[in-house]
């Protein structure tokens, strides 16, 4: 019997076979924390009694969730993390560099890697055929100390993608639709493995959006094969030598198979307060929104800002709607400036936020007021997520977000594109 991508990646790192259901100890290629999970992780690491990080060069600390810090306590957390990085020699990405998952994609993730991070959206790097998964602080503290962790090898759902996206429909719509189909716990613990002829046209930014939200089905990893698109992206990032092709075996065993034809999809919206509460954008028509937020590890990439800027160019945001834009990284921000996207967005009335997580998790930079609604390109809309349990968060693509910012209510982008 052949292997799924998950089995293949894990088995390649072990001295023995890896089959769904096995519990294995594996060395990790990359371990990271961010400023929300990092302080606890580091204190637990210190409690373990280990003095050195097993692999400091591939142990990363990102200051992105509160960047720049809005409050004294978080500023002190940042000091603690910087001091730890200096003392142990691990890599630190400071305020303004961007969101950890985007930086992992730009600079670190390689096909075949095992990547663990103290952040649930670590799963994003599955776009590179990396076994990337989020864990809590204790697990990451141990991974920092030992350079390894334990896994139960997951069973896999195969997601076969065919066709091309119609106009106005994007990777975000695909993953929202899929989450609606599978449900918020429908793939708990499983691997989602994406394949099919549509991948020939699916860029890395699109794959990153999809892999990022695989966790919203409960999945442990969301994996794409490593192919020409992966190679092209790595080469563009100056990391072409880290490319290797990686595919599942043709006779791998899958627990479930799902097929999706991209050409049949339409713009989708996730309604409050669970991500799987997904409906076509037409069902959200007329819902007034006080804030639009375009950014995050889901949809803050250059391609996302390009789409938003193409819709907003020459237009103004609705006077009753705030428009917040946070590029996912400094690289994205600089490229978006050079290409004029930032100019068009600012001209349309957008507030440009620093690269980072920004308003996504309710800390700062766009906390909602009582009774307000936000249309966000992020990945979560749980009650209280954006800092106020009395607010509503809707999730959609950057195109839907941009169109909605113009109209002031949730709008199908095809109506104004």
């Amino acid at each position, binding site marked *: 019997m052949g292997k799924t991508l998950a089995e293949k990646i894990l088995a390649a790192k*072990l001295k023995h*076979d*890896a089959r769904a*259901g*096995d*519990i*294995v*100890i594996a060395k990790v290629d990359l371990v990271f924390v961010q400023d*929300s*999970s990092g*302080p*606890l992780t580091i204190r*637990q690491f210190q*409690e*373990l*009694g280990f003095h050195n990080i097993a692999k400091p060069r591939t142990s990363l600390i990102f200051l992105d*969730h*509160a960047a720049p810090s809005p409050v*004294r*306590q*978080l500023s*002190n*957390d940042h000091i603690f993390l910087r001091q730890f990085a200096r003392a142990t020699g691990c890599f630190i990405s400071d305020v303004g560099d961007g969101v950890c998952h985007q930086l992992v994609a730009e600079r670190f993730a390689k096909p075949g890697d095992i990547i663990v991070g*103290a*952040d*649930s959206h*670590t799963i994003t790097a599955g776009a590179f055929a990396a076994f990337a998964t*989020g*864990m*809590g*602080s*204790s*697990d990451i*503290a*141990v991974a920092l100390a*030992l350079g*390894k962790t*334990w896994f*139960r*090898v*997951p*069973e896999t759902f195969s997601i076969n993608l065919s066709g091309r996206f119609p106009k106005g429909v994007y990777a975000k719509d695909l993953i929202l639709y899929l989450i609606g189909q599978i449900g*918020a*716990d429908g793939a*708990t*613990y499983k691997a989602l493995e994406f394949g099919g002829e549509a991948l020939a046209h699916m860029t890395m930014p699109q794959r990153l959006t999809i892999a990022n939200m695989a966790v919203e089905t*409960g999945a*442990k990893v969301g994996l794409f094969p490593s192919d020409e698109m992966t190679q092209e992206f790595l080469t563009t990032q100056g990391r072409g030598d880290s490319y290797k092709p990686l595919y599942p075996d043709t006779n791998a065993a899958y627990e479930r198979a799902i097929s999706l034809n991209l050409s049949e999809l339409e713009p989708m919206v996730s309604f409050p307060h669970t991500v799987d509460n997904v409906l076509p954008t037409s069902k959200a028509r007329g819902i007034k929104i006080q804030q639009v937020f375009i950014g995050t590890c889901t949809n803050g990439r250059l391609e996302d800002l390009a789409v938003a800027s193409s819709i907003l160019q020459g237009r103004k945001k609705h006077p009753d709607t705030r428009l917040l834009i946070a590029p996912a990284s400094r690289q994205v921000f600089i490229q978006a400036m050079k290409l004029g996207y930032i100019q068009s967005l600012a001209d349309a009335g957008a507030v440009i936020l620093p690269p980072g997580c920004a308003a996504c*998790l*309710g*800390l700062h930079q766009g*906390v909602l007021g009582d009774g307000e609604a936000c249309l966000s390109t992020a990945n*979560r809309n*749980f*009650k*209280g*997520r954006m*800092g*106020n*349990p009395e607010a509503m968060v809707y999730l959609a693509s950057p195109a839907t977000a941009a169109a909605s910012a113009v109209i002031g209510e949730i709008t199908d982008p095809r109506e104004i594109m």
Partner: protein
Amino acid sequence: MSDIRLKGKAIKLGDNISTDLIIPGRFAHLRSNLPELAKHVLEDTIPAFTSRVKPGDLLVAGKNFGLGSSREHAPIVLKMSGVSAILAQSTARIFFRNAINQGMPVLLCDTDKISDGDELELDLIGGVVLNLTAGIKLSCSRIPPLMSTILEEGGLIPYIQKHKDFVIESPISSTLTGED
């Protein structure tokens, strides 16, 4: 985990209680001050939860408890509030692992058979929940190997302090289909 039998009163919650609901992101500035952070546990779900919960109480949830963010502060503040174990129909993957890593027992069973305020007795080794109020017995799915050892030894940090490494005959072929 000092006791293998726990007795307590059920505090009932619904489905899809996210880690954002357990401990909202807006309190991230208190994450390095756990006693202060713990004052806000579940406050968006059960008003005045911290004044209601008594040491030894059992949190009884529906489906997909602990979905979302990987913040381990969620099981930590639940533990600090006095909750001695979590019962649910299902839990999210990261939360399950985090709770066990904190030495917090998590039992998966048919929690529809438990009402708010019911007196429960848990047999953690046998995987059995006795609903003393309703007079019924519920069986729970077993905690996977390795995780059960980590739980018995009080969590992952004490486990690694003791063994200095993971101690398993690698690989264990697991017959379980539940959480990792």
